[in-house]
């Protein structure tokens, strides 16, 4: 079973890898975006870590609801409402149980990913975070490691795609050949699950 500590470790591990990869995320966002993805997420997840330390939410759902709220407040770019919605809807779906199963997390995360698709209007293949998150949720039933591998593969597979959502879509065919920064950061979020589980 996964308790609030697991979810705190998930957020802390995500913050650490976003810190580590911020320059790369911003570099990926330079040719097809506005070169702020790394710094925006870094600011957001730094705020998430600080708030979780201060408020010490005691249930998995509460941890994600609070983390999502911070991202919406502090990121300043489209990834704020998108990741904020992902975490808040996932947290809401987990309810106020003190512990949840991996199966419950998978179902809740699927709800969160659906909410992101609805908010941004993106579908798989549009060269967005959805291209990492959808395969990750599918593989999560198997293991955290499988989810990480699926998310990383999904992120890499955005390179030949033409962007159909967001600022990158203005570039049309010129968006082809670049890995999507949002799918890349989504893969970091999913990889952090495995770290939190200590696998």
């Amino acid at each position, binding site marked *: 079973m996964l308790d609030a500590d697991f979810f705190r470790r998930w957020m802390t591990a995500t913050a650490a890898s976003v810190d580590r990869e911020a320059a790369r995320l911003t570099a990926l966002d330079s040719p097809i975006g506005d070169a702020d993805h790394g710094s925006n997420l870094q600011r957001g997840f730094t705020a998430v870590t600080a708030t979780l330390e201060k408020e010490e939410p005691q249930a998995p759902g509460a941890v994600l609801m609070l983390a999502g709220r911070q991202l*919406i407040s502090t990121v*300043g770019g489209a990834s*704020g409402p998108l990741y904020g919605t992902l975490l*808040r809807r996932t947290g809401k779906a987990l309810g106020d149980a003190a512990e949840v199963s991996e199966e419950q997390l998978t179902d809740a995360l699927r709800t969160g990913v659906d909410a992101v698709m609805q908010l941004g209007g993106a579908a798989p293949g549009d060269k967005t975070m959805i291209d990492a998150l959808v395969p990750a949720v599918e593989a999560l039933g198997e293991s955290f490691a499988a989810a990480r591998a699926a998310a990383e593969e999904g992120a890499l597979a955005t390179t030949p795609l033409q962007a159909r959502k967001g600022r990158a879509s203005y570039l049309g065919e010129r968006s082809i050949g670049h890995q999507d920064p949002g799918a890349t950061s989504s893969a970091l979020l999913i990889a952090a699950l495995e770290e939190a589980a200590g696998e």
Partner: protein
Amino acid sequence: MSDEKLVGIVLVSHSAAVAASVAELAVGLAGGGTTAPVAPAGGVEGGGLGTSAELISAAAASVDRGAGVAVLTDLGSAVLTVKTLLAEGDELPAHTRLVDAPFVEGAVAAVVTASSGADLAAVEAAASEAYAYRKV
């Protein structure tokens, strides 16, 4: 029609200067007399380009006179942030709507219409109609 219950307008842009200037333009073009309350929510706190949920919430609260609030946005994170705040339920005043409209022309149409005492649906319709004004 009551002057005290005008629809409020919030203008959300990635740029503080754009939001403030469009607000100034729309109020200027609305002419003399009573104009609807208009608040810009541009950029992020501290002045950079981006979208601030806090600035949007504060702007919406500041123009809420009880007749509803129409929110116009430029693009990307401005749209997504307003949609997210609306989905949260308690972040924006009751009867706040994201209006699908071109930013500048829609803002002028919204402020002129709201200043006449029209209700939220009429303000929304006028702003959206601005998509249909052909220039050539």
